[in-house]
């Protein structure tokens, strides 16, 4: 951001900037420590044996990393399958949630129609219903629709994600000028095409943000998948982790549990790193507005 643009002449201003910068760094480093510390502990725990873990916390790694990994890999749980399932479900959920929520938000943002205000209020109200409430009826419904033990009920409902919609709508309010859409129309672009080729790219930072949120939420979701998926090969990672923790006493091994947690966090970190590029250095709409 305008790194070469330092025009500050007065020394006191310079000094105050300096002080503020030092404070900022201290706070940022402290926060970063608080954020990274947990990953460090998880990693340490993944290197410890079950008996060692029973002894509580230590900051030093142990030497059971390979052993935990081999035990986990050669165990009866299909962890690679689980990861694949988690990936498929989470990627599709994130894609559907962001794409269709942007579309819904665009419908409310860009068009004038009778039910517009009602729809906006309605979707906001939907957002206020405790998720718990519908989830119970939801599971019954899945059974009746014959979708038990399939991934569909975990993916398709993401199309109607009121919170994602609300964010997209707010984001459009602050950054998407209607004049741009008018311009596209004058150029003869169809509405669907305008949405896909002009609006979507402009929404990239917002989409990246909500894609991460949806992805992570879906990745870490335990209860709905636990009730919907029954076959080991269809299960997602959180269910397999719970299964590992519920192991009988001959097989119980916290070392493996921590290894599995580490294993299941790894892909999310990668997905996050990829998507976060779009947020932190995403398209700035300023260029369009100007």
């Amino acid at each position, binding site marked *: 951001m305008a790194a070469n643009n330092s025009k500050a002449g007065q020394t006191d201003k310079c000094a105050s900037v300096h002080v503020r910068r030092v404070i900022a760094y201290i706070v940022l480093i402290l926060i970063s420590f608080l954020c990274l510390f947990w990953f460090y502990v998880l990693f340490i725990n993944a290197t410890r044996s079950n008996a060692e873990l029973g002894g509580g916390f230590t900051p030093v790694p142990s030497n059971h990393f390979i052993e935990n990994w081999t035990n986990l890999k050669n165990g009866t749980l299909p962890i690679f399958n689980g990861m694949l399932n988690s990936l498929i479900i989470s990627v599709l959920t994130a894609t559907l949630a962001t794409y*269709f929520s942007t579309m819904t938000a665009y419908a409310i943002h860009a068009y004038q129609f009778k039910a517009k205000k009602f729809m906006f209020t309605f979707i906001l109200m939907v957002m206020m219903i405790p998720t718990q*409430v519908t989830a119970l009826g939801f599971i019954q419904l899945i059974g009746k629709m014959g979708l038990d033990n399939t991934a569909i009920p975990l993916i398709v409902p993401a199309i109607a994600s009121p919170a994602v919609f609300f964010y997209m709508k707010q984001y459009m309010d602050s950054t998407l000028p209607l004049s741009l859409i008018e311009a596209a129309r004058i150029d003869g672009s169809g509405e669907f095409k305008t949405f896909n080729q002009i609006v979507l790219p402009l929404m990239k930072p917002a989409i990246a943000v909500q894609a991460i949120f949806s992805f992570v939420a879906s990745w870490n979701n335990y209860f709905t998948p636990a009730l919907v998926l029954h076959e080991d090969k269809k299960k997602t990672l959180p269910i397999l982790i719970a299964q590992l923790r519920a192991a009988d006493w001959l097989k119980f091994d916290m070392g493996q549990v921590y290894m599995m947690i580490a294993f299941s966090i790894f892909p999310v970190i990668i997905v996050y790193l990829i998507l976060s590029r779009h947020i932190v250095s995403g398209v700035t709409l300023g260029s369009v507005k100007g």
Partner: protein
Amino acid sequence: MNKKSKVVRYNKWGYIFLIPFIVTYVVFQLVPLVSTVYNSFFENYRSGLTQIGPNFVGLQNYVTIIQNGDLPTYFANTMIMWVMCFVPQIIISLLLGAWFTDPSLRLKCQQFFKTVIYLPNLIMASAFAMLFFTLFADSGPINSMLMQIGVLDEAYKFMSNVWSVRTLIATMNCLMWFGNTTILLMAGMMGIDTSLFEAAQVDGATATQIFYRITLPLLKPILVYVMITSLIGGLQLFDVPQILTNGTGDPMRSSMTLIMYLNKHLYSKNFGLGGALSVILFIVTGILSLIVYKITVKEED
């Protein structure tokens, strides 16, 4: 004439673009929702595997919930923990957002810091809780550290005192979600034309002025979003206290939240009381959100 029909033709796309949302919503959520409301007027639960009801009882479920008088307590618990979590969270988020967008600060390693803050959210709440239990155990590292430096004489039971439990819940929740808020705000800030900041700087505006005069107003829609969704998320505070207190909300239910209370009724598949409670929660959330929305939108005008 021609122009008007064209506008109408455009606007029908508004409906078309709404179709996927509406269809999905009706199929997967409206049916369960309607049955929730419907069920709130019935006695309807399971004792073991035996179904009791449904018997129509009118407003009896609502009366039961209001009469037992615990709801205000759980509401207060929820709000206390939400405030304890939300205030530091929004302050940190705004501060970080301001720093990251402040051209005069020219922070290095921004990419690193921006990336790191969201990371705690990637850890499952249950895994996070396992680490918290280990750290804050009587014989855990926090206690032994405090005892070594002489702050404590004997181990402090973090999970047995009202305020320490609430603080732990708020801390864990805050850690997990502040990155989330910061990212939302930052994505909003990225949408602000950087030339605005530069122009303001050239005009001699201080960092504080830039923040209050440019960043905040332009960020308003996103801030409204953050406020409302945080409020809703706060009222629905559940998984962290549930896991950290093992579902009890102890000591003496001082950390029991509204949804944890709802959850208690779901054990017996008590559709009646659970439904009534949900309807009450929905009304409370609606009123509070409306207030927040009205206040923020009014300011905008």
